[in-house]
């Protein structure tokens, strides 16, 4: 499903963010990526949806090598990967409904299918009644649910989340985690970078720890392992 082989990333300013990453993630897995700030976690995640291009090595997702994919093909790659961010990244001038529908409009889905699918995922994240609201009228947790709905509306095989609960209060964070569990239960692979010790230790899944651009720990039923 996701395979990284000897991935290196050096930024133009000389920062060596990834120093030889090898990892294999099975279809349907749920993986936490943990590690101190500046350890390479974010770069690791960004390489997975091709916001960053590795300096060396190969990253194969859904059968495509992201290290070799051409600029023009990037949109197509991203359509098969749902991405969720700490700051939600919703389009401020579009309603909840329109934000979610956007992911289907880019693949030129028919209006009928768009309507059905958008309402279906909004139902899943329990925001059906707020479909016509704008992002700034919603709470942080609600906005994150919209962004999750958008990331899964076209049924991508992989969902990648970069600190999805980072901006949320603990209670809301748990609600968000429930949705991720649900998504994963439906067979979608989930890769989540997080700083949330409680969540990692409670909902136990595979844990990959990154330090200094290397994988220092990879446990099937791991724990957070850091004192925050």
């Amino acid at each position: 499903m996701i395979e990284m082989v000897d991935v290196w990333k050096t930024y133009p300013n000389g920062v060596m963010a990834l120093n030889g990453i090898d990892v294999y993630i099975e279809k349907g897995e749920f993986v936490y990526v943990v590690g101190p700030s500046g350890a390479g976690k974010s770069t690791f995640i960004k390489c997975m949806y091709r916001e960053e291009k590795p300096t060396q090595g190969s990253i194969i997702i859904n059968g495509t090598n992201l290290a070799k994919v051409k600029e023009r093909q990037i949109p197509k790659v991203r359509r098969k990967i749902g991405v969720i961010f700490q700051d939600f990244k919703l389009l401020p001038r579009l309603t909840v409904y329109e934000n979610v529908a956007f992911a289907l409009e880019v693949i030129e889905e028919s209006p009928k299918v768009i309507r059905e699918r958008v309402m279906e995922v909004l139902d899943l994240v329990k925001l059906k009644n707020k479909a016509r609201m704008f992002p700034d009228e919603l709470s942080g947790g609600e906005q994150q649910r919209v962004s999750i709905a958008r990331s899964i509306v076209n049924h991508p095989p992989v969902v990648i989340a970069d600190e999805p609960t980072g901006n949320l209060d603990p209670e809301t964070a748990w609600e968000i985690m429930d949705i991720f569990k649900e998504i994963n239960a439906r067979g979608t692979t989930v890769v989540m970078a997080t700083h949330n010790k409680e969540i990692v230790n409670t909902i136990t899944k595979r844990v990959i720890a990154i330090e200094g651009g290397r994988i220092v720990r990879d446990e099937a039923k791991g724990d957070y392992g850091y004192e925050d």
Partner: protein
Amino acid sequence: MKIRTLKRHFVEAFKSMGRNGWMSFASISAVTVTLLLVSVFLAILLNINYIASQIEDDVQIRAYIERTEKPERYDAYKQELEKLGKVKTVEYQSKEEGLDELIESLGDEGEAFSSLKNENPLRDAFIIYTEKPQDTAAVAKEVEKFKFVNKVEYGQGTVEKLFKVTDVARNVGIVLVLGLVFTAMFLISNTIKLTIVTRRREIEIMKLVGATNGFIRWPFFIEGFALGVAGAILPIVVITVGYQAIFDIVNQKLGTVFIELLPVTPLIPQLALLMILIGGVIGVWGSLTSVRKFLKI
């Protein structure tokens, strides 16, 4: 691209214009003000050119024929004159016709000359029009060399000054309009850029969700075009109503004089088309150049 996606882009563009009401208003206003200036100056420039051409076309060379020449030979002389380069037409005017014209042109005072009809002091003449009015002086010099020509008249001195004035008027007009168009392009593209800079983040997000550059560009393209064209509406209304009014006044009060303005049609339809074109092109150009900056993400 599927038809329904194109439809989606149109819907998106107009929705965006509505939701960014003030920004749209600012862009349209910028286009309106500048196109208003451009259309007014263009109308003035075209009329200056038109009037100048009218005056220039009136310039003629009168070649008076020696009294000693026999009328039988006039046809041959006419042909000789026609063979000269840069000459458009040569007309023969007998001294009687010349006197009639003189009397007519002087109006009431001309009556006094009626008595001259029996003792006509004028000479038979050839009236020569050149292909380009500016060649008048040069052709006149050539004509003067013929033996059968007694005297050449073409408003010596005055004609040279007239051409200087019309040339200056034309050049000043062209410079003004060009300057205005460039100012307009600068102003409008900047206003539109402003509206799009605020959307930089939105473009980044769209790309992360898997939108291609073309998909992102289309609504901006349509929006820029629509804003530009919308900005052309008021200038077109103003120039249509205003020009019609000025045209009526000028023709009523000055119609008897030799000056005449360009007719409303086709001038106004052509100007309107040009305004829509300039507005649309500048709108599209402004929005696309600014989107391009953010598409490399």
